[in-house]
């Protein structure tokens, strides 16, 4: 039984990371209808900037965490300003390919640094012994990571529900022309959406880096695996991203915990999200919380 609960715990840990990583994609999609395929690279960039600041420049990890969030904030904002803004109104294939191209450029830039090929890990600042409750153990890094994730997600939801900027972002996602007519600058909102996405990506990168160690391949693969998550949650719902993230984390952990090695299977955790994705797309394409805008052909 404790094996079951152990899987539940690790599923929630993985799932909350997915939720945070998916949050950035949802933010961008919600306001500007762009699926950002470069999100994984921004996550990796955030994690590496934090590592660089903490280890090479010896800044306390809390401050470098904040600093890297600010840096990716401006990085993502300038990406939107330079590349994506010219493509407003272009066909969706162009927009998708531009984000893929941007991801490739960021790949190249990261490969130029030592971070591209080697493994690093953050200096430990938390106790080593994992916490355990009746056979179920969770390490301090995971616990703190989950707590920070939920604080951040709470902060983002508050930002969207209450703050003026958040409300204007929701307005733009609802109706661009109507929001223009009440004096919202739509391009500025797009920029801000990308910027907040960059910020959340950096946070996700730091938390993933702390839990799994810094490896470029692992980090940027998160940019692809969040797509099943956001589809399950409904592409433009923050609550959906959180719920779907945790569901996906649980599914993945249960698959690798119970299926692997039992029927001659292995690596099911990696493929399960995509199988779920196909099933959702076939039966409920707007996801759990998304708006119904899919039309039948």
């Amino acid at each position: 039984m404790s094996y079951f609960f152990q899987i539940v715990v690790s599923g929630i840990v993985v799932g909350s990371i997915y939720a945070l990583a998916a949050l950035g994609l949802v933010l961008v999609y919600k306001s500007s209808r762009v699926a950002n395929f470069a999100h994984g690279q921004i996550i990796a960039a955030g994690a590496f900037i934090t590592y660089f600041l903490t280890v090479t420049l010896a800044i306390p990890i809390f401050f470098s965490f904040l600093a890297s969030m600010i840096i990716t904030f401006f990085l993502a904002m300038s990406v939107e300003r330079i590349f994506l803004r010219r493509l407003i109104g272009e066909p969706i294939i162009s927009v998708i390919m531009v984000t893929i191209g941007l991801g490739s450029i960021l790949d190249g830039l990261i490969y130029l640094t030592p971070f591209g090929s080697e493994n690093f890990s953050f200096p430990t600042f938390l106790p080593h012994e994992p916490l355990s409750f009746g056979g179920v153990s969770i390490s301090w890094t995971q616990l703190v990571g989950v707590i920070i994730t939920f604080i951040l997600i709470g902060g983002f939801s508050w930002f969207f529900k209450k703050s003026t900027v958040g409300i204007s972002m929701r307005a733009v996602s609802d109706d661009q022309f109507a929001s223009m007519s009440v004096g919202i600058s739509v391009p500025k909102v797009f920029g801000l959406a990308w910027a907040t996405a960059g910020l959340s990506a950096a946070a996700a990168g730091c938390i993933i880096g702390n839990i799994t160690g810094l490896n470029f391949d692992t980090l940027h693969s998160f940019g692809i695996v969040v797509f099943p998550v956001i589809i399950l949650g409904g592409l433009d719902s923050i609550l959906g991203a959180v719920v779907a993230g945790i569901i996906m984390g649980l599914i993945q952990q249960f698959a690798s915990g119970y299926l692997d090695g039992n029927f001659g299977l292995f690596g099911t955790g990696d493929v399960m999200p995509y199988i779920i994705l196909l099933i959702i797309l076939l039966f409920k394409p707007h996801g759990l919380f998304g708006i119904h805008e899919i039309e039948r052909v």
Partner: protein
Amino acid sequence: MSANTWLATGNFYTTYKQEQKTFFTSLDRSVFTFFLIILFAWPLFFPLSNKFMLVIDNTLIAVVAVMGLNLVTGFAGLISIGHAAFVGIGAYTVASFCRTMGDTHIIITHFWPLMIILSGLVGAGFGAIVGLPALRLKHLYLAIATLSFQMIFQWVINFMTFFNQGQTISVGRVFWFTGKVGRKDHYFFWYYAILVVVILLGFGFRNLLKTRYGRCLIAVRDNDRAADAMGINPGLTKVYAFALAGFFAGVAGALHAYVYRGVGFESFTLHESIGYLAMAIVGGLGTLNGSFWGPVFIKFLDLQMEHLSEAIGQYLPSGMNLTTAMKPFTFGLVIVLFLMYESRGIANWWRITKSYTKLWPFRY
């Protein structure tokens, strides 16, 4: 039709039959013939080393695959981020024959044209299955559905012992009328074989677009409801577009298996899928000649970048990993620049040149 059969300043069709002609002017025909002669003749006069011949074979295989992608993404407007998986299905069709019958079985070595067609058909079958979500999904959702097909394909190949878990499965050397194609002539021989396939499929592609079965793709891309009103079944057309793309990809995959004399998992990853999309976009989505320009441009760029980073790499500190960095960086830059400044691709340059020469030396 204008009296001058060599130069035409515009279209002067009076019947639909005239519009369906392959070559509009005699100039077109002779330029095309000239190109064909050059393509067939140059390896005889300028023999290249096997290494470069492999690059050229590889480019031609990419041309076949990109033609398929252009059909589904360019003409039918359905974004496919899983094209390398279709190519992989073609290659693994050949590989599974090799696994069950041995890689030098007579079917593999003597009846290889049959194998290539069979791989194309298997690819088409899978294409139709993967195209099924297109009945319900559009745009981004469809793109992500094909993405998940790609990931599931990768997992299946890595998982099944029948496919050697993604390790290379060897494919035997083929026979021609003159006997076994040896190591020295291998790439040379396949250059001609692939060239013939490219020309056949290219003509097929071009003629398809002049019939009902090609035009329905364009109609569905531009407005599927209007197409529905015109009596075209949009759902069926979308599945059919995926099947066509699967056929081209399957043929490309079989050729890949034969040229490399082996099938390994790493040639059919998500990265390759993105590469095919990039080639289609750089060449020009929704054009036939773009399917030639794109792969040529991207493969040539890759080759040059390898040379360049090797040349510069000596002068850099050893920590900087220029060789691995250069490829994705230039690849991404090329995609982004093309989409921002020339979203109609190289085919557009070709079109501009052609319309310029039509009126030369006069201008508007």
